[in-house]
């Protein structure tokens, strides 16, 4: 098999993989927007269901919480923020995989998109920690003195997200260099 044939086969594989990845990214956007829409509707129509969901997540840790209009709205806002970042990541991923699907692999545009995804993934971890902390604060701020809580927690998942995000940013820099070489190569006959 010649070098050209191998390269053509690799591009076919990239296109095929990108097609599947694009489908999953679209699914991710649909699920994330669906989740936001579902809880937004619940916030307007059925606050008891929202309260039940909040209790399920926050009381399980043996925490005393006070749910009122303000704490409910704040918790909703803090919990929804990482999901919005997720929507941003998925939308950037769709654009990136579309580039790959059309055979544009070593391009500055692809490097830019990967760079954005990387920083968003890396930012997701501290944002998750912050949103959880703020949500606990909002839910316990109306508790009697002595029962108010400030909770900060970091888990393996957050560390993985930071490493993965920085890895993507590094790969984006490498892809940018590859795009420079590819552009140069195109100017050589």
């Amino acid at each position, binding site marked *: 098999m010649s070098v050209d044939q191998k390269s053509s086969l690799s591009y076919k594989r990239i296109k095929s993989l990108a097609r599947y990845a694009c489908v999953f990214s679209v699914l991710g956007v649909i699920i994330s927007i669906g989740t936001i829409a579902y809880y937004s509707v619940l916030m307007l129509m059925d606050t008891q269901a929202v309260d039940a969901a909040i209790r399920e997540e926050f009381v399980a840790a043996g925490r005393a919480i006070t749910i009122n209009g303000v704490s409910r709205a704040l918790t909703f806002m803090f919990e929804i923020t990482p999901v919005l970042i997720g929507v941003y990541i998925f939308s950037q991923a769709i654009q990136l995989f579309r580039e790959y699907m059309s055979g544009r692999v070593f391009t500055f545009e692809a490097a830019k998109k990967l760079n954005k995804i990387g920083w968003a993934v890396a930012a997701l971890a501290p944002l998750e920690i912050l949103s959880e902390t703020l949500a606990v604060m909002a839910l316990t701020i109306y508790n009697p003195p002595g029962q108010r809580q400030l909770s900060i927690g970091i888990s393996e998942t957050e560390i993985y997200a930071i490493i993965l995000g920085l890895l993507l940013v590094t790969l984006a820099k490498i892809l940018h260099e590859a795009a420079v070489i590819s552009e*140069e190569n195109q*100017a*050589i*006959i």
Partner: protein
Amino acid sequence: MAIIVTLDIMLAKRKMRSKELSELVGITEQNISLLKSGKVKGIRFDTLEKICDALDCQPADILTYEAEDGS
């Protein structure tokens, strides 16, 4: 640029058209045109070899060096 492409002169000497050369070398006519106008950053050895083979000439017959002003 100090390297001057004299491919058009060689093509005229051999009475060959760019289209014919592009078919013999296996690159597009557009690339031959770019090469003739010197609007390329470089030329691969295998392309050069094919051009020399098609035109029955030496690399020096299609590439010359001219010192730039002030150098």
